[in-house]
């Protein structure tokens, strides 16, 4: 019992110290990207989209979306959202111009994070369409 308490206490202390130490490390993230993360969260984007493979699988992964689509196309999409298929009327949630720019800044920052090739490129299964 005593040994259990000692080991438990040491482990917990190490866990807490390392957690708080890491949280204080300088993170070179632009202020616009910080604001963009708040926009990302305020619209609950993670429910449908994924980042680093985590999130909802209803819509596209956003990890490298800036590289794939370009900033102008993304901004147009966010400000004048299109119909979400297979719906005929329901639109993708829209944001203001300022929010769109902040969100794109955040996604640009996310694009710089090394992910070892994730998400994998799309491919067609043999016999599929």
């Amino acid at each position, binding site marked *: *019992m005593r*040994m*259990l308490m000692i*080991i*438990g206490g*040491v*482990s*917990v202390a*190490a*866990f*807490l110290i*390392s*957690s708080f*130490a*890491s*949280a204080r*490390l*300088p*993170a070179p*993230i632009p202020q616009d990207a*910080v604001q963009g*993360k708040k926009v*990302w*969260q*305020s*619209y*609950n*984007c*993670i*429910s*449908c989209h994924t*980042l*680093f*493979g*985590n*999130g*909802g699988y*209803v819509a596209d992964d956003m990890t490298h979306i800036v590289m794939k689509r370009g900033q102008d196309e993304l901004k147009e999409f966010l400000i004048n959202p299109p119909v979400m298929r*297979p*719906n*005929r*009327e*329901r639109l993708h*949630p829209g944001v203001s111009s300022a929010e769109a720019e902040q969100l794109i800044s*955040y996604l640009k*920052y*996310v694009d710089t*994070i*090394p*992910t*070892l*090739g*994730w998400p994998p490129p799309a491919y067609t299964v043999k016999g599929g369409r």
Partner: protein
Amino acid sequence: MSLKMARRFCLAAVSLFGVQGMVALLGAAELVIPDLPSPIPFEYGRAIHVNMATLWPLIGTMGLVYYALQEELGRDIFSQRLANWQLWLVVGSALGIYITLAFQIGNGREFFEGLPLFYAGVFLSLVLAAYNVVRTIIRARSNLTPAAAVMTIGIVFLPLLLIPNLMRFSNPIADEVVKFWVVHLWEEMAFELTTSGFIATFIKSLGLAAVPRGQHHYADRGFWHCPSLLLDRDACLLVGNRIYIQHLPIGSGCFPAAYDLQGVETSPQGNQTGKVCALVHFEQSPLPCPGGLFAGISDHHTLGESLHARNLPDLRTCAHGCIWVLGIFGAGRILLLSK
């Protein structure tokens, strides 16, 4: 009285599970039927579903531990009143999360979509649970069993792993890391430990293992297999998971897997008492039991998933897959010390 409390937790957990199923069906219907009218948008409905999926196992685990502790130790838990407050606190916090999300008020972090205030309520409830459980085993320390100790470790780690998620991180990697502690470490460490202890208790209550009079704690020796095998299963799943997601070098999983298998082989064989098991294990293992937990948790975080490793993906990958898995085995090794 402990059984009465356990039944209340069970009822709350099963109710949430049932509602979660209905929410899932409604969400699926919205995906299949175009323009289906829904008072709650899909993105918030999914958030409610996900938060139910997180909280019903948590509430069920609390009840499970109270039930199993009473079975293991042969006495009631430390405070029924505290357990009652704890139940209302966690259920109230959960309802707060679901109701505010239904009104499209939230925080937008997957698995933590509700307002942080409500997760603080969940945290407080877990702290009360941990306090209640620790006080219970301290009162019954002369009759402490490995199963009870394992469950206690599991329940103590639940609030600890939740702490960072009460803070706000602007860096997306830090955000993902602390979320990971709940999403995976709750499931694959804390819940596994509580469940392992429960399985041991359950097998004994079924009469599948004899408990000689006066040798209660020695009779648990055979149950090393339960948690150890569960952890081995985790080794396979986790290593496979990491290979798929993060291109983990396959060799990095071999060491922890071999380490754990060695533990399974050495501990139950030919030893008369748990203490001998622990000594044998210390002598034959490449890393002492507490070292596994210490190295696993601290190294995983400081090396593998800290901001230091942001630009060193290879280091992060290896640390993530190898050292962290070792941490789980380290947690399992505390089983031996609890004798």
